[in-house]
């Protein structure tokens, strides 16, 4: 079962619909402010591993415009803008979504905030991607991350360590024996990357596993949570190479360590 304080997003790509949700330990009024005030959005929307929000302007009334700019980790800039359609603090916010990387398309986002005894259930509905499967799926992954950042912003700063085991599955079972020169270079960069994370204390141990069915890689991460674990594997040179590697990340709820 998905833990409710963990952000999740799912898509019905055929219908062009993304739904995402997370439970946040603060009342709807505070969550609504966090979603709309420049000071708040600039703080929580982004992370050093992915991108940072560099500006946020919002004329918070029906028909009012909003505009956000950000910078990706490699310096590339991007913008998203749109218009507020419904503004009903602290329960509902509907706006159009026009990212510069998806021009000229316009889609629509609805945030619904429901009070719970423990805080707020935030539900996101993003619609209008009909017949555009790829962008629908990238937004699904994106919203998982964004709602995760938002929820993390409401958690106490000193998050306890969480342990995750990851498996790196190569593009083919024979990879360790027949990798190309280019793939070999990627593997060297991959090894250096995790050595750096070892020095940072983010990974406890890692390395290849000999398996008669085909070798694969394993590691144990010590991080703040799944968001950070996913960020670490997403920034791995093997992921960036786009060469068909895939990661499995599995929680170790009762890890014992030195």
């Amino acid at each position: 079962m998905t833990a409710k304080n963990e952000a999740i997003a799912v898509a019905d790509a055929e219908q062009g619909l993304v739904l995402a949700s997370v439970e946040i330990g603060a009342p709807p009024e505070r969550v609504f402010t966090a979603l709309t005030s420049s000071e708040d959005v600039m703080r929580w929307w982004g992370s050093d591993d992915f991108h940072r929000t560099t500006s946020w302007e919002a004329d918070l009334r029906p028909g009012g415009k909003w505009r956000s700019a950000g910078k990706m980790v490699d310096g590339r800039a991007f913008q998203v803008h749109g218009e507020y359609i419904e503004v009903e603090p602290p329960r509902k916010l509907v706006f159009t979504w026009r990212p510069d990387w998806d021009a000229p398309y316009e889609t629509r986002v609805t945030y619904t905030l429901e009070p719970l005894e423990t805080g707020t259930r935030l539900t996101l509905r993003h619609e209008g991607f009909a017949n555009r499967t790829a962008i629908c799926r990238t937004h699904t992954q994106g919203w998982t991350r964004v709602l995760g950042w938002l929820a993390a912003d409401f958690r106490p700063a000193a998050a306890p360590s969480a342990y995750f085991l990851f498996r790196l599955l190569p593009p083919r079972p024979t990879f360790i024996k027949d990798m190309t020169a280019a793939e070999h270079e990627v593997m060297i960069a991959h090894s250096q990357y995790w050595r750096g994370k070892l020095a940072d204390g983010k990974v406890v141990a890692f390395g290849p596993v000999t398996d008669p069915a085909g070798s694969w890689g394993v590691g144990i991460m010590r991080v703040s949570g799944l968001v950070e674990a996913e960020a670490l594997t997403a920034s791995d040179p093997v992921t960036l190479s786009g060469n068909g590697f895939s990661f499995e990340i599995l929680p170790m709820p009762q890890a014992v360590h030195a």
Partner: protein
Amino acid sequence: METEEKIKPDFRLPKESKWVAPRAVADGGGGTLIATAILDVPAERIFRALTSDEVERWWGAPGFYRWTDWHADLQVCGQWSVIVRFTDGSTNGGSGEFIEIDAPKKIVMTRRLEKHPLLGSRETTITYRLDPTPHGTRITVREEGFAGRGEAAYGNAEHWERVLGWLDTYLSHSK
């Protein structure tokens, strides 16, 4: 937010994991839920498990209930029905009609339970989509018709994660 194909490779996105736990999200206000999972079998296999009396073998678990007495006239406007048998011996009837069948990719069907704790006897519409991915078949379930019954949408979303888990377990042991 994430970008599309034109900026590649998108370093901000992890590659899709080989194994994805069943996940579901409800939009109570919008009256819709979506559940997804990736199952390591072909779409034909899943289609059969969803539409034949095989449901009696996997839909349910000790401590919950079992689906029994499955009947289905697998054609557009065909009827289906099932008896839900709970651990305490009580039963509930489920039934509906097929709206669209595109084997093995899509099934649209209505569903109504005689008594549902949060839904009463409200009919919902369920759409199953089965799409191939590099790691198996992605099953997407969309259930609609919860308007005004938001709690039922949240309850059913949580339950769909369980149901897709049962399906995954069954299929991975019956290849």
